[in-house]
């Protein structure tokens, strides 16, 4: 299935968000996610199903002022 991850096209085999994140290399990383502009909490990852064309955002801690 083709989705966008941080605005880059990616092809994934897993449709469950928790598994797709592992497939994309995010295993055990401190991150937060949103799909199509809506926050998806970690507690929902195992129950969230991705659809083709979804816009997945994955963010991590960064320097800030």
């Amino acid at each position, binding site marked *: 299935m083709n989705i966008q991850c941080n605005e880059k096209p990616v092809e994934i085999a897993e449709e469950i968000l928790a598994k797709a994140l592992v497939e994309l290399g995010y295993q055990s990383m401190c991150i937060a996610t949103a799909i199509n502009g809506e*926050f998806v909490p970690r507690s929902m990852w195992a129950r969230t199903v991705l659809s083709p064309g979804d816009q997945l955002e994955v963010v*991590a801690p*960064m*320097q*800030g002022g």
Partner: protein
Amino acid sequence: MRVYSTKLRSRFLLGTALYPSPAVMLETIRESQCEVVTVSLRRESGQSRHGQDFWSLIKESGARVLPNTAGCFTAKEAINTAHMAREVFDTKWIKLEVIGENDTLQPDVFGLVEAARVLCSEGFEVFPYTTDDLVVSEKLLDAGCEVLMPWGAPIGSGQGLNNPRALRRLRAHFPNVTLVVDAGVGLPSHAARAMEMGYDAVLLNTAVARAGNPVAMGRAFAMAIESGRLAYESEPMEARNMAAPSTPVLGKALL
């Protein structure tokens, strides 16, 4: 100083961006004895460890984090970012920024109040980055904010306190609200001035991180902030137009 239910010893809140290296950032945090540092969230790829490494460094510093919503131009974006920050950083604190204009990074106070209302009702402890407008400040307090963070000048400008009269008015009007000057401070004397006015704390980033020697500048700001606070608590004298001799006139020899 108390912010929400948290007691802080240091009145200096420091940003973590723009340092020449992570090691300098860490040393600056330590040397300035800041207890609170601001952080943000940005995209990370599954192949990068940049954010993870940064987070390890911040945890190593022992500082409490205040995540921001920098770069958000709508209340919705800021609310979503706050939710993500709460999950990543495991804190109710959020430095709420809703930017209205790109050149000045002036807060969109309408979006700010809207986002503050939602986030306060959801249990966030909101630190709103706002202007020095008194009515907007009232609305933010009505929304549930217990801290206000008016700008000194545009972010990163180093101009200092552009509107000291308005800042004084805020202090006088809200004697019991925690007030933090956030943004635009360029020199330790600017920070000291804010503290002499009775501001509870100062938040800054660029003035320290972009200094030739960030570690030393961090210490300079820490001293200025402490000095300004001590001056405020010491009840400074009133300024007067005419001279008043400090040496006793009585007893002067007739020569």
